[in-house]
Structures are given as structure tokens and as C-alpha cells.
């Protein structure tokens, strides 16, 4: 059964690479390191690297650094047991063993779980800030480092203003200096650390700002719309939408995201900041409907009737003009396919 799941993700990668793999040429025969490599992004990058190596003989050597390498090994042997993928168990704040021959480093070590951010804001700060300092200090000693890519967050520019269709990279605004906003503030500070690393230590570093993703490898336990709707549907329950469902979000599929990150790290310029996400907005109501389509019988969709500040902007959409113009990146997997594939994957997983 697990085999079938692997097929889905492998086919996703091949589909995205088809006709586009030339854009990743710089990665051939190189050493890639992903810190925080066993999370959603790291896992999808591993899938993409495996596809590049198997299908196109790219010869990339991938190291995944994480605290959770043991779980990764038991959950995903099809990746963990590969000769071209090494697992290194380490906390980002104390990077002991590190592949010193690294050409490309992607710093994706973060805990995106909003519950942790709320309950443990100081720990959240430490992982992000101390972690980034540690990465930057290590990068100083890498002779062959071509680029360091830091995965920040689309939230660093604060709330999206009502009249704006998508947050551009240079959007003014910042999150309030409040413990409830520790995550985006810490990410913002980490971006500043990266800029300082460039200024002081000349590290070639660029920043990607991830918005929302969807796809296999995303834990259904997290309290996001795309995960809770799926979780509800898989449990055979009604899909419960908080609020009136008019909030607008967007979702980029896992294989798309992996391609985007690899293209950015290997062809980007030091100092660049790029939004990574889908510019195509969908209301939560429509998202729920789309999820429901994939189940038979189709689950009911319930809206929470408690009054909310309707009209107060809680939209979050990236403006991806820069990603498109500079990197030729766009949405490769339309949302309805993304949802279908994700639902399929989870259905197989649950058997």
C-alpha cells in the first residue's frame, strides 16, 4: 500500500519536472543540504531530488538535517534508505556534524505549528533566531557554498491590507510586537540576520517567503483549513468551516513548492526575496466544496454561525510577479488537482 503512495508523489515530481528540468541544471553533481529536512518542504525536496536523480541522472547528493530523523526513517524508508540521501540527526541550534562540501544549503528548520507558537513563544523564538544564527555561523566556514536559501514566511509583512490583491515582497508593514505574533516577528528577525550575514560575512544568502502549501506529507493534525477539512472528510464527518467561509487563501502543491525552492536556490541572486505560494485565491467555502468532491458520499459543509468581523481582512495571498518574471515559476498543479491528489494519498495511507 505504501508503494502506491510513493507512486503518487513520484509521478507528481515527474509531472512538474517534465519540460522544466533544464531549469535546475545548476544542481547537477552537487551537494545539497536541507536543514529541517524532514518536514513538509524537506520531504518534498527529497522526493524531487530522488526523481531528478533517477529519471534525469542529476547525481545530486542530499543531506537532510533534523531532530526527527528516526521518525523519518521509519515512516519513509523509500527516501531514507536511498544511497543519495543522508540523514543527520541534529538540532539546528547546535549544528555539529555538517557536510562541509555543501554547494547549496536550504534552511527550512522551523516549527510551523501555530499551537506551539501560541503556547511556547520563547521556544519558538529560540529555534528560529538561535537556529538561524547557528546556520549562518556554519555557512561562514563552507568553502564551496554557492547559495544559502532561508525559508522565512509570508507573514513577515504583517496583515494583508484590504485593498491589496496579493502581498508583494516589498509590502510595507510588519507584525505587531506581541507574543501572539512571535512566529512572524522571529522570522522577520531571522531575515535580518541573513541580511547581516551577507553584509558582514559575505555569505551569499537569499530569502524565500513560503505562504500556504497543500499535499501529501502535511500532517492532518495541524489546525489549518486545508488539513482540517481533509481530516473531517476522511473521518466521514461534516466539514466544519470557522466563520462565514469568505476568507481567501491560496495553496501551492508540494511538488510545485519543491521545484520552486530548487529553482530559486540554484539560480537566484544573493539578496533576493521571493514569495513562494499560489497567487490564485480561493475562499474557504470553495475550498471546502472542492475537498468534499473527492469523497463518496460527499460530506456536508457546516459554517460556524458565531458572528465574526466580516469584512475585516484576514486574506493571505502572495503576489508572485517576481517569482514569475525572474524565475519563470507559476502554479503547475491547479488547486482542484492538488486537492484530489492529496485526498487520494491520504485515503491510501489510511488503509
Amino acid at each position, binding site marked *: 500500500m505504501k508503494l502506491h503512495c510513493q507512486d503518487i508523489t513520484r509521478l507528481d515530481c515527474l509531472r512538474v519536472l517534465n519540460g522544466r528540468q533544464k531549469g535546475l541544471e545548476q544542481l547537477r553533481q552537487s551537494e545539497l543540504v536541507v536543514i529541517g529536512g524532514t518536514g513538509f518542504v524537506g520531504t518534498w525536496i527529497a522526493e524531487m531530488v530522488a526523481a531528478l536523480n533517477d529519471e534525469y541522472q542529476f547525481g545530486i547528493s542530499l543531506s537532510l538535517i533534523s531532530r526527527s530523523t528516526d521518525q523519518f526513517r521509519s515512516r519513509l524508508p523509500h527516501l531514507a534508505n536511498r544511497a543519495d540521501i543522508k540523514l543527520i540527526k541534529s538540532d539546528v541550534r547546535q549544528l555539529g556534524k555538517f557536510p562541509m562540501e555543501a554547494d547549496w544549503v536550504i534552511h527550512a528548520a522551523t516549527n510551523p505549528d501555530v499551537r506551539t507558537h501560541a503556547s511556547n513563544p520563547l521556544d519558538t523564538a529560540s529555534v528560529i533566531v538561535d537556529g538561524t544564527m547557528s546556520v549562518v555561523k556554519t555557512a*561562514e566556514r563552507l568553502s564551496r557554498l554557492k547559495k544559502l536559501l532561508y525559508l522565512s514566511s509570508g507573514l513577515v509583512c504583517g496583515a494583508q491590507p484590504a485593498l491589496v490583491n496579493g502581498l508583494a515582497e516589498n509590502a510595507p508593514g510588519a507584525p505587531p510586537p506581541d507574543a501572539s505574533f512571535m512566529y512572524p516577528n522571529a522570522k522577520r528577525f531571522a531575515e535580518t540576520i541573513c541580511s547581516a550575514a551577507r553584509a558582514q560575512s559575505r555569505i551569499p544568502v537569499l530569502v524565500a517567503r513560503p505562504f500556504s502549501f497543500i499535499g501529501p506529507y502535511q500532517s492532518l493534525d495541524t489546525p489549518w483549513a486545508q488539513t482540517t477539512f481533509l481530516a473531517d472528510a476522511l473521518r466521514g464527518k461534516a466539514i466544519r468551516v470557522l466563520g462565514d467561509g469568505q476568507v481567501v487563501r491560496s495553496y501551492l502543491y508540494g511538488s510545485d513548492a519543491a521545484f520552486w525552492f530548487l529553482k530559486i536556490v540554484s539560480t537566484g541572486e544573493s539578496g533576493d526575496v521571493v514569495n513562494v505560494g499560489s497567487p490564485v485565491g480561493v475562499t474557504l467555502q470553495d475550498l471546502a466544496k472542492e475537498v468534499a468532491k473527492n469523497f463518496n458520499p460527499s460530506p456536508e459543509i457546516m459554517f460556524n454561525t458565531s458572528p465574526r468581523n466580516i469584512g475585516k481582512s484576514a486574506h493571505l495571498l502572495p503576489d508572485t510577479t517576481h517569482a514569475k518574471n525572474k524565475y519563470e515559476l507559476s502554479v503547475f498543479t491547479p488547486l482542484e488537482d492538488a486537492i484530489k491528489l492529496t485526498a487520494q494519498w491520504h485515503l491510501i495511507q489510511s488503509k
Partner: protein
Amino acid sequence: MRKLKVAIIGSGNIGTDLLIKVLRSPLLECKAFIGRNLSSAGMVKASSLGVTVSAEGIDYILKNPDCCDLVFDATSAKSHLEHAPILKKLNKLAIDLTPAKIGLMSVPSVNLTDSLAESNINMITCGGQASIPVAYAIGQTQTDVEYIEVVSSIASRSAGPATRQNLDEYIKTTEDGLKEFSGAKRTKAILNLNPAEPCVDMQATIFAKVKNPDIPKLSEVLLGLVAKIREYVPGYEIILGPIVENDRIVVMARVRGLGDYLPAYAGNLDIINCAAIAMAEEYARALPKTGSDK
């Protein structure tokens, strides 16, 4: 052979690189790795290698005077000016890797014997370590050395804030060193930071204006000197010359680092550390053979 007990003050990248070299040396033993912050990367590394660490600075040595006989100071010029008199009082040998340079300028392949007689020596500058042997060879073999000029080029990434804020000192020290060791009437030092990627290894070009250039003689002496240098700086290489081009002698040297803790392209930092280790090992060799270890 009895090992010389050493301490390193300064737990940044340079001090940590030095530590790894000390640990590799059959003649040296690191008894203390001293800095200001126990959680810095260097301190963590030192601990993981089983070396005693301390965040007490020079106080550690004052409190434990028998811990070592030689101290590498990789802190700052300001700090070394504080440390030097203390170390002198405690009768410790001091190798100064800061811009302070209050002791004898030392180039192992050139003035080893003189250096051994001193208790405070410094490694001049990276450009100095790379070019002074060449300048010395020119001084030894050419008549009337009118002028020597050294242009050093280092990877931008290997030049941290300390280097950048001390360019003038670098230039003056290198020029003084060149004059001292070559006997040239005038000297000039230029430093270029090269931001090219991939990072370039350190390179030093030595120009000399002499009366009647004698290249064969120079080549012979230089060959011998380079062999000596490569004993302690394996990455040192003469890549051009000696030749006469446009009426002047030109020699180009390249230094690739060992990559112990610093990146390999930072040959400029490595040559200083290698020279410092070489001197420490010479002090070790000069230790009296009789007597038991303390």
C-alpha cells in the same frame, strides 16, 4: 618527545582553527581553550574534542599559571596589549596573532633562530608571511634592491570586520616587514579584496625594482625557501616567476588553506595559523630533553 603545553585565547574561527592544528601536532598539547562565551561555536567544538574550556579570559591563566608554557593570542589588538605584560610576568611565550604586534616579526622560513630567542613574536600579516620569504630571497641575491611592492588579493569572504577596519595597519606592518627582511630602500603593500565567486585562494604578487636582475640566482634561493615554507604551509605555491616583465622582477605566490576549521580558500588566515604553529613547534623542539613531564 616532550610536548609543549599551550593555551589559546580567542575562541573565534581563527582560534578554533588553531586548536585543530595544535591537536594534530605531535609536539604541542592544548591545555586550555579560552574565550568569553562558553556557548560559542568554537567553545562547543573544543569541548567536544575533550579540551578544557574557559570563559574567564586571561584570568584563567593567572589562576592556573602552570597550565601552559606558550600562549597563542587570537583576540584583538586591544586585548593583546592587556595580555602581553601579564604573560611576560608569568614567563610565558606569546605568539601574537592580533594586529597589536609589539614583539618580533617572525617568518619561520626566514628568521627562525632570532624568533626562538624572543618571548613575544607576531606573525606580521598574511601578505607578509606569503611575500617576505620572496622579498628576503631577492634581498639575498640581488644587488641594489631599490623598491619592493607586494599586492595581495584575498577572497572577500575571508576578510571579516577586524581585517576591514585595520587595512591601514595591515599595509604599514607588511611594508615594515618587507623592508626589514629584504633591505629594500622603499616598500609598498596593497591589499585587494576580491568578491569573485567561487572564492579565490589568497594570492600575492611581488614586484621588485633592482639594479641588475639575476633570475637564475633568485630562482635557486627561492626554490630552497619555498621547500621550507611548504613544510608548514603545504598549500603554498609559486605560480609565476621569478621572471622579468616590464623591467621589474615579478613573482606570484598562491596560498590555499588546509580547511581545518576555516574554509580552504582562506589561505590568508591559514598561512598565519600555520606559521604560528610552526613557530610553536620550534619552541617545542628547543625544549630541554632532560627532566620529566610536569
